[in-house]
């Protein structure tokens, strides 16, 4: 993140004044609030389906935007990332804070979980310090009533000097009242706030006043009081912004010496002192306005947790849920997938019948329909997986799943929530990579995205089945099992450990995570969540995958050498007209010649040439040009390796006993050691072009995308090299 650019803020201010003249300017409302405060359900209630996921400044943090027309006012609604605070320690907080400072939304609606006022109001106090008067939405008001908590809204609103509206996001209660108040505030410009509210200790107040009196402090376009507080809190972004300003280093000196003095006098660090003062202020306001019943019954959440996080039952329950999610995603998902596939097939055949046999037809069928078909078949998996994930997140189970699996994942430097992407990878890496979005911290998310492709997906299975069947017929089942379930998972954990010790050394993210009360997810929220993922997948991926499919199609078909075709056609014709051969002999001879022709043509195409050119790269692994070409075609999808091997190894093109003959051919071309090494390469290198693009899209960083590709190929090469050459050293064949 770039430091706060205050000159930019100034420019924005000027622009804003111009805009204020025109009343047609749409209002912008920003929703801010803690994670789990029901902010998203409130956002859904306000905007309905009129929303989209945007990304902010090239970071992976999502900012959702929507619009609503209310009483002829056009309102743009922005759902900021959920945060507990507005310091710049995490990306989410930076994004939320930068939006409020730079974009200057007309109204900040601070969504509050009204059953947990104390912690939720901590963010409110920070908004007030920033000079923003938020509109408080006391959400989950039904739960407040159920829990018999009494809140004197009127008095609290007066004490804090901010308007409060009670809402219930999940059934849209009081949404109109909220918008009404927001519009009123925006029009009356009642959104500015300038009062020292936190009851800071006298020592702190003195320093703040001293800092505010420095003229430069008032030239940044944000509240000087807020800047002073942030300097005392040692906020890195504010520091670097102030440092750049004229006389900035002098201000930093004042702040730093004042901070150490305060810490010396009060015997605690400034951050805690300030936080305690904020909490003290909140406690003061709540003491007069909130009555909570004495808790005499066990809460429902605690009862559910007595099973969900039970020392013995937690894991069986967890694995049951995971099994259900996996089955639903990949087994249930196979039915709509089958329908989509036959739809694509129908389209292909229609084009085949309707168009003459031209290059264009081939491009449409293999390049475009093949490419687009290759994407949409993943759609059912993604829809179902994210339906399940949305239920788990909205209900509060996700946090528990992370709670029980974190110990294992943390050993290799990951987060409990990395478990689900890992597990889903066994079905297909693409939804798995997307599932990494459930991780809050960018580092954890990045690690999970980098590692997820190592898990062996189901598309790799046909390769294992072919090789294990051909080379290890007695142990085929075990070998397939090892590759499909053990080796992939093992490399996931080993690489995670290596990353932890090298690349991400010391980059440990705090786990401190709220375990929210269990809540019934609303169907509407779950559907919106699911649709957003699907839309994102189709829109963001569609174009790129299409381009890649066309490139791959061109490479695997061009250039065409007409000489090869002519010379083989000549040979085939001479066999056909030969009088010495029986018709059976003729057929088998032409079959051999045709497959030879196909092979020669493949060698001439782009992919064949690249594959052959890459032979020296693969030679230390024991692979020749055929293996090299087949691995290259595996970029389309891993199962394509099997079909291209048919072209590469089979001398006869007929369909008769094709599987069996391919196995025999594999056994002829591969020693068991070479085959074993080959299977490892298939396991470890880039899963397929769609997965690759998903990784690039989700990492949102050129540097990390390149790293992802390079490390997977390097890993595949090194492991395969070690197995092949190591095996030869100890005399294996």
């Amino acid at each position: 993140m770039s430091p706060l650019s205050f000159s930019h803020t100034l420019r924005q201010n000027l622009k804003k004044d111009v805009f204020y003249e025109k009343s047609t300017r749409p209002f912008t409302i920003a929703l801010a609030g803690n994670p789990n405060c029901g902010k998203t359900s409130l956002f859904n209630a306000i905007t309905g389906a009129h929303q989209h996921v945007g990304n902010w400044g090239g970071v992976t943090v999502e900012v959702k935007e929507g619009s609503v027309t209310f009483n002829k006012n056009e309102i743009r609604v922005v759902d900021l990332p959920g945060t507990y605070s507005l310091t710049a320690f995490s990306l989410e907080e930076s994004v939320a804070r930068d939006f409020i400072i730079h974009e200057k939304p007309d109204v900040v609606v601070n969504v509050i979980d009204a059953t947990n006022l104390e912690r939720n109001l901590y963010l409110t106090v920070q908004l007030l310090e920033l000079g923003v008067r938020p509109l408080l939405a006391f959400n989950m008001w039904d739960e407040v009533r159920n829990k018999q908590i009494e809140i004197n809204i009127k008095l609290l609103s007066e004490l804090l000097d901010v308007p409060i509206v009670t809402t219930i996001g999940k059934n849209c209660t009081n949404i109109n009242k909220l918008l009404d108040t927001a519009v009123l505030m925006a029009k009356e410009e009642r959104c500015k706030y300038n009062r020292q509210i936190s009851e800071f200790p006298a020592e702190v107040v003195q320093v703040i006043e001293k800092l505010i009196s420095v003229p430069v402090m008032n030239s940044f376009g944000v509240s000087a009081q807020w800047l002073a507080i942030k300097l005392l809190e040692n906020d890195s972004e504010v520091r670097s912004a102030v440092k750049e300003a004229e006389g900035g280093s002098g201000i930093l000196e004042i702040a730093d010496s004042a901070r150490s003095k305060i810490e010396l006098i009060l015997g605690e660090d400034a951050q805690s002192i300030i936080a305690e003062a904020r909490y003290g202020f909140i406690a003061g306001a709540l003491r007069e306005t909130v009555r909570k019943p004495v808790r005499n019954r066990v809460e429902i959440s605690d009862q559910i947790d007595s099973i969900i996080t039970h020392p013995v039952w937690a894991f069986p329950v967890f694995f049951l849920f995971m099994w259900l999610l996996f089955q639903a995603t990949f087994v249930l998902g196979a039915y709509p997938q089958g329908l989509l596939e036959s739809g694509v097939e129908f389209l292909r055949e229609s084009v085949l019948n309707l168009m003459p046999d031209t290059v264009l037809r081939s491009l449409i069928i293999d390049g475009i329909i093949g490419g687009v078909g290759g994407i949409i078949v993943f759609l059912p998996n993604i829809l179902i997986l994210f339906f399940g994930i949305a239920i788990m997140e909205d209900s509060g189970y996700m946090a528990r799943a992370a709670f029980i699996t974190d110990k294992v994942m943390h050993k290799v430097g990951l987060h409990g929530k990395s478990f689900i992407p890992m597990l889903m990878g066994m079905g297909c890496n693409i939804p798995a990579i997307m599932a990494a979005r459930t991780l809050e911290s960018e580092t954890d998310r990045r690690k999970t995205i980098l590692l997820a492709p190592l898990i062996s997906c189901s598309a790799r299975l046909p390769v294992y089945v072919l090789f294990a069947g051909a080379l290890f017929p007695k142990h085929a089942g075990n070998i397939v099992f090892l590759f499909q379930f053990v080796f992939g998972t093992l490399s996931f954990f080993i690489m995670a450990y290596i990353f932890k010790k090298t690349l991400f050394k010391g980059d440990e993210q705090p786990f401190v995570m709220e375990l929210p009360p269990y809540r019934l997810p609303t169907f509407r929220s779950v559907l919106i969540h699911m649709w957003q993922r699907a839309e994102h997948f189709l829109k963001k991926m569609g174009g790129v995958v299409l381009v890649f499919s066309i490139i791959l199609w061109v490479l695997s078909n061009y250039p065409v050498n007409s000489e090869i075709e002519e010379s083989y056609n000549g040979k085939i014709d001479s066999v056909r007209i030969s009088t010495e051969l029986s018709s059976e002999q003729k057929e088998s001879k032409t079959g051999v010649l045709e497959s030879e022709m196909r092979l020669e043509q493949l060698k001439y195409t782009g992919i064949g040439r690249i594959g052959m050119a890459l032979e020296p790269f693969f030679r230390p692994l024991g692979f020749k040009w055929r293996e090299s070409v087949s691995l290259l075609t595996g970029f389309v999808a891993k199962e394509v390796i099997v079909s291209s091997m048919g072209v590469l190894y089979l001398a006869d093109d007929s369909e008769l006993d094709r599987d069996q003959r391919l196995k025999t051919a594999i056994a002829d071309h591969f020693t068991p050691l070479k085959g074993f090494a080959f299977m490892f390469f298939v396991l470890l290198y880039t899963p397929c072009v769609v997965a690759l693009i998903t990784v690039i899209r989700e990492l949102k960083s050129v540097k990390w995308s390149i790293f992802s590709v390079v490390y997977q190929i390097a890993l595949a090469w090194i492991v395969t090299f070690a197995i092949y050459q190591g095996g030869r050293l100890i005399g294996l064949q």
Partner: protein
Amino acid sequence: MKKSAVMDLSSCMEGDLVKIVRIRGDSLIRKRLIEMGFLRGRVLKIVKYAPLKDPVEVEVGGSHVSLRVCEAAGIDVEPVY
């Protein structure tokens, strides 16, 4: 305050009620703990340890929060009787 009474949160047992004395640890974790309401003088309840004995769930100011045992070790507490 008797010195011997102070222990770190990771050595507490399920069901214990303790009072926060001090939060050590690096600034990122400290900051996250503070904003979630882990303040000096507040009472914490150790709700339960995860099935694999790490992380630990505690209740503070009405919220349930899970933290790793290594993070809990940075919080000094004293028992509440």
